[in-house]
C-alpha cells in the first residue's frame, strides 16, 4: 500500500470533480444543476485548503517519487486554492446573466485546479508534463465557454493552438534532456547535472538546447515576452470570470513549476538560465509597461499589466538565490490578491444588464459609487507599486533580491518600467475621480462581489501593518525549495 497521504488534497478534489460530473450528467441540462454544483465545488476547494493548512509540512514523496509535497508546494497550493475558490465564487452571477449556465464550468475549473496543484508538486519531467496538460485542457474549454459568441470561441481556439505548440516545445525539451541524461526524475537530473567533485561543470549542448525548449514552453504558460502574444486576445475574448480565473491561479502554478524545475534539477546551471530569464524579465516589464498605455479595453489592459507583473516576479527569479525565490513567492501572493480584486471590479462593470469593458465606462464612478471607486483606486495604486499599499512590498522584495545578486541594472530597468506602468493605472484613477459622466453602472453589485472586493482592498491597505506573517511563510517555502 503506497503512502498517499501527501496527495490527500488532490485525491479529494479529483474525486469530488468526478462525482460532480456524474451529478451534473444525471441532473441534465436544467440550470439548477449548475447552481448546485458550483457551491459544492467551492466547498471542496475550501476543504482542500484546510487539509493543507493542518497537514504535514515536512517534505514527503508519493507515487514512486513523482509527487513531492513540501513547504514550497503547500505555500503555492494554498494560494492556488484560495484564488480558484474566489474566482469560482464570482462566476455564477455572470453565467446566469449571459445565459450560459452549465454545470460543466465548475467541474472544468476543478480539474484545472487539480492540474495546478500537481504542477507545483511535480517531481519528474513526466509528472510535469501531465500536470501541465491537466491544467491547460480545461482552460481551453473554459475560454471557449461562451460558444455562441465568436469572440469567445476564437479566443479558445487561439489559446488551444498556441498552447499546444508550447506544450510541444516543452515536450521536445523534456525528451532532449532525457535523451542526454537518461533520467526523468528531478533528483536524478540534479545529480546528473551537478558539477564534478573538483567543481568543474560540463555543459552538454543537448541538455542546454533541451533547457531552452523547456524555458520557452514554460514562458508561454507564464505569458512572458516573447511568448506572450496569446495573452491580450485570450484575456479579451474569454468570458470575464474565465479571464479572472486565468489571470490568478494558473500564473501562480506556472511560476511554481518553473521555479522548481530551474532551481532543483537545473540548479547547478543557474549561470546558463539566468541569461535567458534576465532577458525575459526585462522584455516583459517593458512590454507590459508600454503596450498597456494604448489600450482602451480594460481586459486587454489587464492582460498587458499581467505580462508586466510576471516580468517583475521574474526579476526575483533571475536573481537565482533564496532571497530571489522568497521575493517571487511574496510577489505571487500579493499579485494574486490584487488580481482577484481587480477582476471582481471588472465583473461588476455592467450597464443596464450588459457587461461593459471599455475603461471609459468607469468615468465618473467616484460620484455614483464611491466605495467601488475607492476599491478600484486602491488596486490601481497597489498594482502601480505605490507605498504604503501591498503592491509596493511585492516589488521591494524582488528588487532587493536583484540588487543583492548584483543585478542592479535589472532592478533599475524594473523601477523605471514601473514608473511608465504607473501612467496607465493612474489613467483609470483619473477616469473615475477626475472625469464626469452621466451614465452610471448598475448597482447593487451583489454580496459575494462586495465581500471579495472589500477583503482584497483591505488586505492591500493594511498589509503594511503586519507583513511579517506572509514574509515568514514565504521564507520557509523558499528555504524548502533550495534544500
Amino acid at each position, binding site marked *: 500500500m503506497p503512502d498517499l497521504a501527501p496527495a490527500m488534497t488532490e485525491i479529494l478534489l479529483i474525486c469530488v470533480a468526478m462525482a460532480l460530473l456524474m451529478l451534473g450528467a444525471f441532473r441534465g441540462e436544467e440550470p439548477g444543476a449548475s447552481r448546485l454544483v458550483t457551491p459544492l465545488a467551492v466547498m471542496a476547494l475550501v476543504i482542500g485548503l484546510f487539509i493543507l493548512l493542518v497537514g504535514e509540512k515536512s517534505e514527503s514523496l508519493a507515487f514512486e517519487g513523482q509527487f513531492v509535497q513540501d513547504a514550497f508546494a503547500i505555500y503555492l497550493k494554498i494560494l492556488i486554492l484560495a484564488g480558484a475558490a474566489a474566482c469560482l465564487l464570482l462566476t455564477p452571477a455572470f453565467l446566469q446573466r449571459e445565459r450560459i449556465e452549465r454545470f460543466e464550468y465548475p467541474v472544468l475549473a476543478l480539474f484545472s485546479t487539480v492540474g495546478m496543484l500537481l504542477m507545483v508538486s511535480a517531481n519528474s519531467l513526466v509528472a510535469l508534463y501531465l500536470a501541465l496538460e491537466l491544467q491547460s485542457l480545461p482552460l481551453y474549454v473554459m475560454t471557449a465557454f461562451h460558444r455562441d459568441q465568436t469572440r469567445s470561441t476564437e479566443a479558445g481556439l487561439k489559446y488551444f493552438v498556441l498552447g499546444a505548440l508550447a506544450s510541444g516545445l516543452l515536450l521536445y525539451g523534456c525528451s532532449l534532456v532525457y535523451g542526454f541524461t537518461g533520467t526523468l526524475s528531478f533528483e536524478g537530473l540534479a545529480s546528473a547535472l551537478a558539477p564534478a567533485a573538483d567543481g568543474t561543470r560540463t555543459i552538454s549542448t543537448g541538455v542546454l538546447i533541451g533547457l531552452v525548449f523547456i524555458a520557452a514552453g514554460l514562458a508561454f504558460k507564464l505569458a512572458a515576452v516573447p511568448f506572450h502574444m496569446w495573452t491580450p486576445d485570450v484575456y479579451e475574448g474569454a468570458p470575464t470570470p474565465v479571464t479572472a480565473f486565468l489571470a490568478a491561479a494558473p500564473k501562480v502554478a506556472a511560476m511554481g513549476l518553473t521555479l522548481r524545475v530551474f532551481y532543483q534539477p537545473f540548479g547547478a546551471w543557474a549561470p546558463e538560465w539566468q541569461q535567458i530569464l534576465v532577458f525575459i524579465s526585462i522584455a516583459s516589464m517593458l512590454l507590459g509597461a508600454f503596450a498597456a498605455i494604448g489600450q482602451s479595453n480594460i481586459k486587454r489592459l489587464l492582460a498587458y499589466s499581467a505580462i508586466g507583473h510576471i516580468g517583475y516576479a521574474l526579476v526575483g527569479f533571475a536573481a537565482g538565490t533564496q532571497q530571489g525565490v522568497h521575493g517571487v513567492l511574496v510577489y505571487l501572493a500579493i499579485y494574486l490578491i490584487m488580481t482577484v480584486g481587480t477582476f471582481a471590479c471588472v465583473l461588476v462593470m455592467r450597464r443596464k444588464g450588459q457587461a461593459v469593458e471599455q475603461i471609459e465606462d468607469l468615468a465618473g464612478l*467616484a460620484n455614483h459609487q464611491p466605495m467601488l471607486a475607492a476599491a478600484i483606486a486602491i488596486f490601481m495604486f497597489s498594482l502601480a507599486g*505605490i*507605498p504604503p499599499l501591498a503592491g509596493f512590498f511585492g516589488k521591494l522584495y524582488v528588487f532587493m533580491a536583484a540588487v543583492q545578486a548584483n543585478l*542592479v541594472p535589472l*532592478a*533599475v530597468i524594473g523601477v523605471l518600467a514601473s514608473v511608465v506602468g504607473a*501612467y496607465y493605472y493612474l489613467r483609470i484613477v*483619473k477616469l473615475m475621480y*477626475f472625469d464626469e459622466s452621466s451614465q452610471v453602472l448598475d448597482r447593487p453589485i451583489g454580496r459575494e462581489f462586495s465581500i471579495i472586493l472589500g477583503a482584497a482592498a483591505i488586505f492591500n491597505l493594511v498589509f503594511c501593518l503586519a507583513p511579517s506573517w506572509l514574509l515568514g511563510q514565504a*521564507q520557509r517555502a523558499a528555504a524548502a525549495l533550495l534544500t
Partner: protein
Amino acid sequence: MSEWPLLSLVIFLPLAGAGFIMLIRGEPAVVNQNARSVALWTASITFLLSLLIWVDFDPSRSDFQLVERAEWFTGFNINYHVGVDGISLFLVLLSTLTTLICILVSWESIQVRVKEYMVAFLVMETFMVGVFCALDIVLFYLFFEGILIPMFLIIGIWGGPRRIYSAFKFFLYTLLGSVLFLIAILAMYLQTGTTDIPSLMAAEFTPEMQIWLWLAMFASFAVKVPMWPFHTWLPDAHVEAPTAGSVVLAGVLLKLGGYGFLRFSLPMLPDASAYFTPFIYTLSIVAVIYTSLVALMQTDMKKLIAYSSVAHMGIVTIGIFTLNPLGIQGSIIQMLSHGLVSAALFMCVGVVYDRIHSREIASYGGLAERMPLYATTFMLFMLASVGLPATSGFVGEIMVLIGVFQVNSWVALFAASGMVLGAAYMLWLYRRVIFGALTKDSLARLGDLRPHEMAAFAPLVLLVLLMGLWPTLFLDPMAASVDHLLTQAQQTPVSQFAGR
C-alpha cells in the same frame, strides 16, 4: 511625560480622523459641515499635541528624542522606528500647522466632495509628519512616496482647468525620482544589513559606492526640492492645485528634498557630498538667478510665486552644502520661513481668487482701496519673501549668505544678486496688484478678509515676525543636532578623491 507614544499619536491621529470622516453619512449639506468640523478638530488637536513635542524636546541633546521602536518586518531588521532631533522638530510642527491652515483656507472655497477632500488632507498630514519622524529608511520611503497619492487626488479633483495634466506630471515626475532612491536604499540595506537611519549614519561606504548612492538620492531629492532643471513640474502643479494644495505643496512638500539632503546625503555619504558640492552650488545659483528672471516675466500670480519658490529653495540647497553650522542652520530657518511665507502668499492669491476667479495679475489693481487689511497682510509676507529685516526671511537668507561667504565668496555674490532680483519681482507684483487706481468694475465691490481667513493668516503673521525678531528661539533647539550632523559629515581623507 514621554511615557506615552507622543510621536505615533501625532502621526496616526489624523489617519483616525480621516477614518472617522469616512463613516459620516446623511444629508449632503450636513455631511459637508460635519466633515469640515471633524477635520478642523482633528488637525487642531494634532497641532496641539505636536506642540507638546517641542515642550518635551531637550535642546541640549544631539541625538534622536522621543524615540519609539516596534518590530515590523520580523527577520529582516526593518523596524518601525520614529524619533525627532533638532532638524526635524520644527518641520513636524510646520506640517501640523500647515494642515490646520489648509483646512481653514478650504472652509468655504471647497464645496464639492468636501468629505473626500478632508480625508485626503488628513491622510496627507499622517504621511508628512511620518516622513519627518521616521528613523527607518524603509518607513521613510513609505511615507515619502505615499504623499503622492493624496496630492495627486487633490490636484486632480479640486484643481484648475489643466488639473489632469498637472496631476500626472507631478505624480510621474516625482515617482521617477524616488524609485532610484529605492534602489539606493536597497543597496545600503544589503551592504549594512540594517535600514535604521542612526546606524546607517555610522556606516561607511566606499567612495565609489557613495558616488552612485549619492546620485540616486539626488535624483529623488532634486525633484522634490525642486532644483533647476528638475523644477518644471512645480509651476504646473502650483497653478492648477487648489489654494490649500499649493499651500501644502510649498509649505511642506518642497522641504522633503532639503530634509533628505540633511538626513541622508550629508551624514551617510560625506565624501560624495563634498565631491558634489560645486555641482550643487552651480545648479543652485542657476536656480536662484534664472528662476528669478523667469518669475519677473510671469503674468499669473501663482506661477510667479511658484518660480520664486524654486529660487528660495536654491538658497536652501546652497546653505545645506556649505557644511558649516551657520549655513546649515540658516538653510533650516530658510526652509521654515519659506514654508510659512510661500504658504501665506498662495493664500493671499487664494483670497482674491475666491472672489474674482482670476489669477492674472492684469485683472487686479488698486486693491488697497477696498481691502486694506488684506493689503497689509500681503505686504508683510511680500516683504518677508524679499528678506526684509525683522521678518523670518531675513534671518534665513543672511545666515546662509554669511555661511557660504566663508566657503566661497563667488557663490555668495551670485546668491545675493538673486535676492536683489527677488525684491524686484515681488515688489513689482505687489505694486501691480495692490496699488494704483481701482479702475476695474469687477473689483468695485470686493470685501476685505473674512473671519476664517484672518484665523488662517494670524498664526503665520505671528510666526513670521517671531522668527524674525527672536530667531534664537528656533536656533537653540537645532544647534546641538546641527553640530552633531557636521561631525558626521566629516569626510574621510580627501586624497581618495584626488585622482578624479
